């Protein structure tokens, strides 16, 4: 008889094999789309980590996604042919030239007041490094302040939400450096050892699929470590964990930063397959949509949240092919969401676990103990 944990890992393995085999049957157009959805799956993992395991409902996950995306996009923008065809041997983003004051020196150092920030991004690897460092740094600073002050529950959600909207506005306002509402478009291709990742070729799909597999396994292993278990204890009863002597904010900050790292990584991969970065990544609706994916897939299951994200997007894409149905589909998503929260708080993963339990015990199943869905903020204050 197989243990539950083994079945879990078997499902993980099956999922990874499945996404590895997909290129055999899909054309390059759909492969590019699927690659995007795999990136969203990675966002699902990030949400499951912070929401499902740490109990921190981050409504500003888009901030980390956007940070990762913009950092790499800046490098890829400079690598783009549009930045090199401006009569200078040094790259300058085209939008900076369009808006340059007459007579301004058309070089990155001084075309406008803040353009020097772009200088180090001439190296692609600087962009990659920043795409990972910046989200983690933001999360670390934010987490250190918020969790040390024992802010919890809905207040964390509101702070993260306000922060992502704030950054979005600043990005839009800083038009000369960020191209404002339009974002960064016409990007070059990501290069790795002489190979260029054209978004519509199979190796690019594998770059995403392998990255997702690594993140998936790493996240799963991480929550099984001692730290991961302590984190879940904190989620279930913060005060008790504190009385037991655990440094609660340290664990929360650590996992918050890991979640940010994954989201930032996802942002970079998204830029590689979609060839743009825009302030819409930091829209409120995008951050909440990520939470929807995780909730439908199963907020307390890493693979569940990942599959939830991929499934919803696959169905959306298929349905939207039919004209006029796209809007109706949105309404259906809204309805599904209400129903999931009301009747299936553990999502698809919860259903799957119930089935596995039934399979293992081979007797009329007793209802599995419901996962704790009440959040800490509903408990009496200290």
């Amino acid at each position, binding site marked *: 008889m197989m243990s539950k944990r083994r079945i879990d890992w078997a499902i993980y393995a099956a999922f990874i094999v499945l996404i590895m085999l997909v290129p055999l049957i899909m054309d390059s157009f759909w492969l590019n789309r699927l690659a995007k959805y795999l990136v969203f799956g990675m966002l699902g993992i990030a949400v499951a980590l912070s929401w499902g395991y740490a109990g921190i*409902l981050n409504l500003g996950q888009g901030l980390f996604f956007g940070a990762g995306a913009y950092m790499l996009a800046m490098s890829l923008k400079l690598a783009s042919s549009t930045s090199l065809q401006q009569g200078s041997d040094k790259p300058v983003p085209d939008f900076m030239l369009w808006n340059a004051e007459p007579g301004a020196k058309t070089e990155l150092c001084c075309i406008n007041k803040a353009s020097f920030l772009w200088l180090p991004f001439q190296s692609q690897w600087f962009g990659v490094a920043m795409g990972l460092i910046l989200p983690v740094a933001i999360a670390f600073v934010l987490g250190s*302040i*918020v969790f040390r*002050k024992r*802010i919890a*529950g*809905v*207040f964390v*959600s*509101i*702070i993260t*939400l*306000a*922060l992502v*909207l*704030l950054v979005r*506005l*600043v990005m*839009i*306002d800083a038009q000369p450096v960020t191209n404002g509402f339009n974002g960064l478009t016409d990007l070059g291709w990501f290069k790795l050892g002489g190979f260029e990742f054209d978004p519509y070729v199979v190796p690019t799909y594998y770059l995403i699929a392998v990255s997702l597999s690594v993140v998936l396994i790493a996240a799963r292993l991480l929550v099984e470590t001692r730290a991961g278990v302590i984190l879940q204890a904190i989620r279930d009863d913060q005060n008790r964990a504190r009385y037991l002597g655990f440094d609660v904010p340290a664990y929360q900050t650590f996992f918050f930063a890991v979640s940010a790292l994954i989201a930032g990584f996802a942002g970079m991969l998204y830029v590689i397959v979609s060839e743009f970065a825009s302030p819409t990544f930091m829209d*409120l*609706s995008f951050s*909440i949509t990520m*939470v*929807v994916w995780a*909730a439908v897939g199963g907020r307390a299951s890493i693979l569940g949240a990942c599959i939830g994200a991929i499934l919803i997007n696959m169905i959306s894409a298929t349905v939207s092919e039919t004209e*006029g149905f796209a*809007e*109706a589909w*949105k*309404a259906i*998503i*809204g*309805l*599904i*969401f*209400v129903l999931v*929260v*009301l009747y299936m*708080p553990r999502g698809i993963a919860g259903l799957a676990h119930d089935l596995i339990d039934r399979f293992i015990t081979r007797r009329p199943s007793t209802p599995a103990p419901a996962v704790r*869905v*009440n*959040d800490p*903020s*509903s408990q*009496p*204050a200290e």
Partner: protein
Amino acid sequence: MLEVLFIGLSLGSILLLVALGLAITYGAMGVINMAHGEMVMVGAYVTVLSGLWFGTDIFIAIPLAFIVTALLGLLIERVVVRKLYGRLLDTLLATWGIAILIQQAVRLEFGLSFLGIHIQGLGPGLQNVSVPDILQGTFRFAGADINRYRAFIILVTAMLAIATWFVIYRTVAGTQVRAIIRNPKMAAACGIDVTRVNALTFAFGSGLAGVAGVMMSGFKTVFPDMGTSMVVDGFLVVVMGGVGSLLGSVLSAGILGEINGLVAAATNDILARAVVFGVVIAIIVLKPKGLFALKGR
């Protein structure tokens, strides 16, 4: 300068208009109603539709919108929110789903657009409401030009705030609501019909959003997504003011409105909103319970 302060005051009153209903549903019931912005939107559409069909003006739309959105709120409370009391973050998620549903219902004309039936005034397009002559233009006050419609908004907001204060602090139902804010179980033990009071409170909060929608329709374009950003602003006001404190919401709306107005006058609207978000974050971090939290809980 006076004109800038006046604009800040009118921005603050718009914030308060949206936040009043939230202050009640969130403060009293522990429900984060993300569909609140959609209630505002429905209120705005009530103005559009009543104008198109009956030729009535904005004054008639105010009570009409209150009734329509209060009934809608009652329905939402009965069907969804009731099952989620005590699960704060789940109410946020479920009402987000409801918000999408309401938006799509308006955009798709309740699904009738698939059958080729179109309702004038609904659908994905933009709608405009014409403001009655008496509210157009400006008047001079203390040496400054004051926009009549903005003054009207401030007046209506002040009246609604006073009415809400009266309902909450001077009526039996309001006393029951406050008892539930303090301790729902104890309130129930004292014989208060918590489910009934909650349903009515939610309906009242939604009705206030409807009135806010009528006021919005007079100076903003009406479209299905208009509520989303409002609900965020409303929440920031309520959380900053202190959950469950009406006075806190009034003051924080005033403060944020003035900050918005002043920064916008000095720089631009986008930065002004960014500064408002920054102030709210700072205040929540420094005083997580808000400026005027209830004590002794």
